[in-house]
Each structure stands twice: as structure tokens, then as C-alpha cells.
């Protein structure tokens, strides 16, 4: 039965600020583990910078490997936050309330992580600034705006800045809540962040408009970002990359992996911070229904890419697809990707019991992202390692331990940053939850009490 929990404003403050105002042992243990593993990855990155790209598995002709795969993976994850937040805000979906902040925050941290990957991949990170920033006034040599490698940082910086502002704007009323319940230096810091917020009708009205207006402005940026990332591939002449369907294919794929990541995050948050009063089965059910639609759209675009490539009967296209489909280990990766991203989870999501099971949704959402990582890997590497005309050196790519350590470290980095955020700010918007409580009621129909939503 569909039901709602009624919680008072004071209870919402107490429960959602528990981790901010008190120290949770589980939080400390998790933060310490993630921090330690991030330190290991930072050491590996330092080793790479010191020794050069020779310590990676990159070699002719495969110069894009794990780092670029991971870059696309995290850009993809970042697409969930704003997509979920913006679309659900614009459509005034009530069930958005507990998930928007966490999803938006994950966008910010995933983007920061993704932005690090090409910088590490450059081997000499400081030199990358010559290629992307128009600052070299002395020499008068500017970045080539015709290069997609300049479009990328422009788009990601725009998306990152926008997402941070989006998160910050919605946090202002919650800063005031923390200001009112803290003392000492915390009171001073949160008071400064709240900027003198009182919560008068004008401020609340503008806060409501801000959510809608910023959502409407960020949505086109969100679509452009992964389109531009796809053009890193699409505007090249590499067979199997040079396809027009790449932009929508990347965007929808990003939404699939991103929404799955939000499901994972919500379930972990619920468990870690005891948010049972705020994250319910129906929220996960709603996200699972969204995932079914997105997965089917993504699957359609995936088959379009495959069919268009084979329809041409061009040797180079077929060579790449033969590698992907029949040449181990790529064929294993392909099978893993296809099973994990689509074949296993989507039929399961058709069942209400699965959609409302936190355990099953945790497993299936993780599976999707395992699959999507392999998807990005098999898009990149086989296309570069194929044997073609005028290719005198070809072969496979095997990531080195340094690459694996750095890439694994990025997962702990995002986890660590999310944990740090949760220590200083509420992961569920307090004022939105209070507003949501005010607008619901139960209507007695015969013998059942039906939850009803009251809106202006």
C-alpha cells in the first residue's frame, strides 16, 4: 500500500542534520577508508607525473585508454544529477524532493573527477593549460577553437560552474537552518553562507523561481556537454567513431548510467544515514520506471550505431566491430557490457517487486554502471587498435597497475567528496522536505486512506 510518513519540521531538522551536527562512527570509518584509498591513487598519479606516460599501458596505436574511458564514464555519471533535478522540478514531480540535492552534488563531484582525467592523461598536466586557456599573451598563440579538445573543457567548465551555482542557490535556506542550530565558529561560518537569509515570502518566491529558471537554463547545457564529449570521437576520422548518431547515443547513455548512479546513491544514503523517513520504496520505484524508458531509448540508439556501421559494408568499420564482437578479451567485455547494461536489469525492472526492493535496485543499478564502463572501453580501444591500411604497428592495450590504481581511486574520490559534503551540508534539502510535508494530506475513500497532493 502506498503511504506517507508525517514528520514535523523539528524532526526533519534533527534527522537531516544529524550527520552535520553530530559525529557518526560509520561516517568516520567510511571517510577514513575512502581517504586512504584516494591517497594511494594520488601517489600513483604523482608517480605517473614523475616518470611520464611510459608507466601506463598506452602505446602506438592505442593512445586513449583507461583514463579517457574513465573521463567519459564520470561525465556520464554527472548527467544524472541535473537531469533528474531539472526535469523533475520542471514537471513539478513531488517525489523529486529527497533526491535532488544528492543527485546535483554527485554531478559536481563526478564532473570534477572527470575533468582530472584528461589532465592526468596528458602526462605533463601543467602543459594542458597552453592548449585550452586563452592566456598566452606574450607569444600570441591561442588555443585552436576548431579543436574538440578545446570545446570539451569549455563545456565541462560551464556545466561544472552551473551545477555548483545550482547546488549553492538551493542550499541558502538550509545554511540558515544550520546557522540557527549551531554555535561558535560554525554559527559564524553558516551565518556567512546564509548571507542573512530570513525566509520572507519574497525570498521563498525567488527561491522557487530560481529552481525552475536554473533548471530550464541548465538542461540545454546538460545536453550539450555529452554531445560535445561525443564529438571528441565523432569529428575524428577513426572508423566506428565517425558517426552522426554519437551525440544522442552518448547523451542517453549518460542518462542511463547517471540515473543508475543516483539509485545506488539513494540506497547507500538511506542505509548509512538512516533516512527511512525520507527515501521510500516509491522513490526508487519512480527512478526504476524512468530507467526503463531511458534504457530502451539508449538500446535503440545502440542498435542504430551498430546497424549503420555494418550497413555500409566498409572494411574498417567491420574490422572494428569484429574486434568488439568476436575477439577476446573485447568480446568478453562486450558481453559483460550488454548483459549488465541492458539484458539483465531491464527485464527485472519490469517487476514491481524488484523496483521496490532496495537490495535488487542496488544490485541492478551497480550492474548498469559496470556495463557502462565497459561500453566506453570497447568504444575507444578496439577502434584504435584495429589493423588497417598504412598501420605499421597495431596491437592490444592492457592498462598498467598505475592506470588501474588511479581509475579505481576516482571511485573512492567521489565517495570521499560525497561523505565530506554530507558532513557539512544536508544531502536532502530540508526546506523542500518541509514544503512537501505541508502540501500532502490523506483522503478517506471508503475503507482506504489515499494520499493526496494539494497544489496551488
Amino acid at each position: 500500500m502506498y503511504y506517507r510518513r508525517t514528520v514535523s519540521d523539528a524532526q526533519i531538522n534533527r534527522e537531516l542534520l544529524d550527520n552535520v551536527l553530530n559525529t557518526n562512527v560509520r561516517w568516520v570509518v567510511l571517510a577514513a577508508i575512502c581517504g586512504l584509498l584516494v591517497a594511494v591513487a594520488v601517489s600513483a598519479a604523482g608517480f605517473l607525473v614523475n616518470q611520464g606516460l611510459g608507466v601506463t599501458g598506452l602505446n602506438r596505436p592505442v593512445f586513449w585508454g583507461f583514463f579517457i574511458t574513465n573521463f567519459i564514464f564520470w561525465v556520464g555519471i554527472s548527467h544524472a544529477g541535473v537531469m533528474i533535478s531539472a526535469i523533475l522540478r520542471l514537471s513539478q514531480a513531488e517525489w523529486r524532493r529527497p533526491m535532488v540535492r544528492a543527485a546535483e552534488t554527485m554531478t559536481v563531484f563526478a564532473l570534477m573527477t572527470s575533468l582530472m582525467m584528461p589532465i592526468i592523461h596528458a602526462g605533463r598536466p601543467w602543459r594542458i593549460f597552453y592548449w585550452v586557456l586563452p592566456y598566452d599573451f606574450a607569444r600570441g598563440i591561442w588555443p585552436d577553437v576548431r579543436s574538440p579538445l578545446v570545446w570539451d573543457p569549455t563545456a565541462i567548465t560551464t556545466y561544472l560552474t552551473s551545477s555548483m551555482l545550482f547546488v549553492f542557490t538551493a542550499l541558502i535556506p538550509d545554511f540558515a537552518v544550520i546557522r540557527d542550530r549551531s554555535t561558535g565558529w560554525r554559527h559564524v561560518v553558516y551565518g556567512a553562507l546564509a548571507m542573512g537569509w530570513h525566509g520572507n515570502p519574497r525570498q521563498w518566491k525567488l527561491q522557487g523561481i530560481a529552481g525552475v529558471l536554473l533548471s530550464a537554463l541548465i538542461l540545454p547545457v546538460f545536453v550539450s556537454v555529452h554531445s560535445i564529449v561525443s564529438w571528441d570521437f565523432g569529428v575524428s576520422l577513426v572508423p566506428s567513431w565517425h558517426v552522426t548518431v554519437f551525440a544522442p547515443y552518448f547523451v542517453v547513455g549518460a542518462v542511463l548510467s547517471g540515473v543508475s548512479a543516483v539509485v545506488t546513491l539513494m540506497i547507500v544514503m538511506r542505509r548509512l544515514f538512516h533516512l527511512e523517513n525520507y527515501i521510500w520504496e516509491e522513490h526508487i520505484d519512480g527512478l526504476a520506471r524512468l530507467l526503463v524508458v531511458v534504457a530502451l531509448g539508449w538500446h535503440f540508439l545502440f542498435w542504430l550505431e551498430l546497424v549503420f556501421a555494418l550497413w555500409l559494408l566498409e572494411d574498417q568499420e567491420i574490422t572494428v566491430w569484429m574486434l568488439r564482437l568476436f575477439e577476446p578479451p573485447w568480446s568478453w567485455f562486450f558481453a559483460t557490457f550488454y548483459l549488465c547494461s541492458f539484458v539483465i536489469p531491464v527485464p527485472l525492472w519490469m517487476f514491481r517487486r524488484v523496483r521496490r526492493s532496495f537490495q535488487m535496485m542496488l544490485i541492478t543499478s551497480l550492474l548498469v554502471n559496470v556495463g557502462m564502463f565497459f561500453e566506453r572501453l570497447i568504444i575507444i580501444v578496439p577502434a584504435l587498435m584495429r589493423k588497417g591500411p598504412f598501420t605499421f604497428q597495431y596491437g592490444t592495450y592492457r592498462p598498467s597497475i598505475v592506470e588501474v590504481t588511479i581509475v579505481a581511486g576516482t571511485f573512492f574520490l567521489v565517495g570521499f567528496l560525497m561523505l565530506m559534503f554530507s558532513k557539512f551540508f544536508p544531502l536532502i534539502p530540508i526546506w523542500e522536505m518541509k514544503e512537501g510535508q505541508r502540501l500532502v494530506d490523506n483522503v478517506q475513500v471508503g475503507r482506504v486512506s489515499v494520499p493526496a497532493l494539494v497544489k496551488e
Partner: protein
Amino acid sequence: MANTKLLGLFQDPQEAADAITALREDGFPHEDMDVYSGSPFPEGTFGEYEAAHRLYVFPLVGALVGFAIGLLITAGTQISYPLVTGGKPILSIPPMTVIMYEMTMLSAIIFTVLGILFESRLPKARLGLYDARITEGYIGIIVACPQERAEAADGVLRRVGAEDVKREGQ
């Protein structure tokens, strides 16, 4: 001339709305009153005075500024170092639009956030008359009035059900 402020704290939104009505009936001007709450209420819940805002101008101005910056960066950098690559024109419009688009959107969003802060009258140097119970669910009714009318305002607030009334400086 308003020279002191009172804050009445209510638990019930209906009582807070009644307080605004009672204060108006007692001759306190609408624009000298304000309502503080810990979460948004539907517009007009308290019959409060509402001044117009111009938030929608900010993203438009921002977009124009961003477009101009994007054009300057893309066209300016290429013209200042006119190196022909691959036989392509120096000012290649399609790739320029990518950066111009991003700059337009970025600037529109930054201006929107600045607009939200400006129209919300933030940041404020001082919090002023306020009570932490507001973020606990209480509704605060602020009334600004001359010193000699403070007692009358206090009486009205208490009569309609204020649990507590605070005065500026207390």
C-alpha cells in the same frame, strides 16, 4: 517614521495570517510588515505585501554578455594569430558556435544567480530581529513602527495568539 521592530512568533499559519489582518486594521501599513518562515508557503497565505521583481531580466542580459565574450574569444584569438590549418577558413563559424553557445549559457546562469541574490536582497550585513525558532516551524511576523506605537503592536500580536513577541534590541 518606523524606528523600532517587533517580531511575533506563531505556531499556526492561520494565526499568523490573522495577525497581519489585525495589524492592518489597527492602522499599521502593509509595507511595514514582513513574514519569516522556515519553509515556503503558498503565495498569499498571510495576505502579505509583495513587491515586484525583475529576475527575468538577469538571464537575458547575462546571455547577451556571454555571447559577446564568446564571440570575442573565438573570433579575436583566431584573427590575432591567423594560421591557416587544413585549408579551413580562419573564422570557422560552426566550431565557434560551440564555444559561443557555452559562454552564452554560462553567463546567463551566473547572471541568474546574481539576480536571485540581488532580488532577494542578499547578502545582508546584519541578521536583525530574528529568532531561531523560525527554522523549527514557527512563523515570525515582523512589524516596523514608531516607538510610541510599539505597545499597541505588541498587544495586537499577543491578542491574536503570538507565543512570544520580541523587540529590536532586546
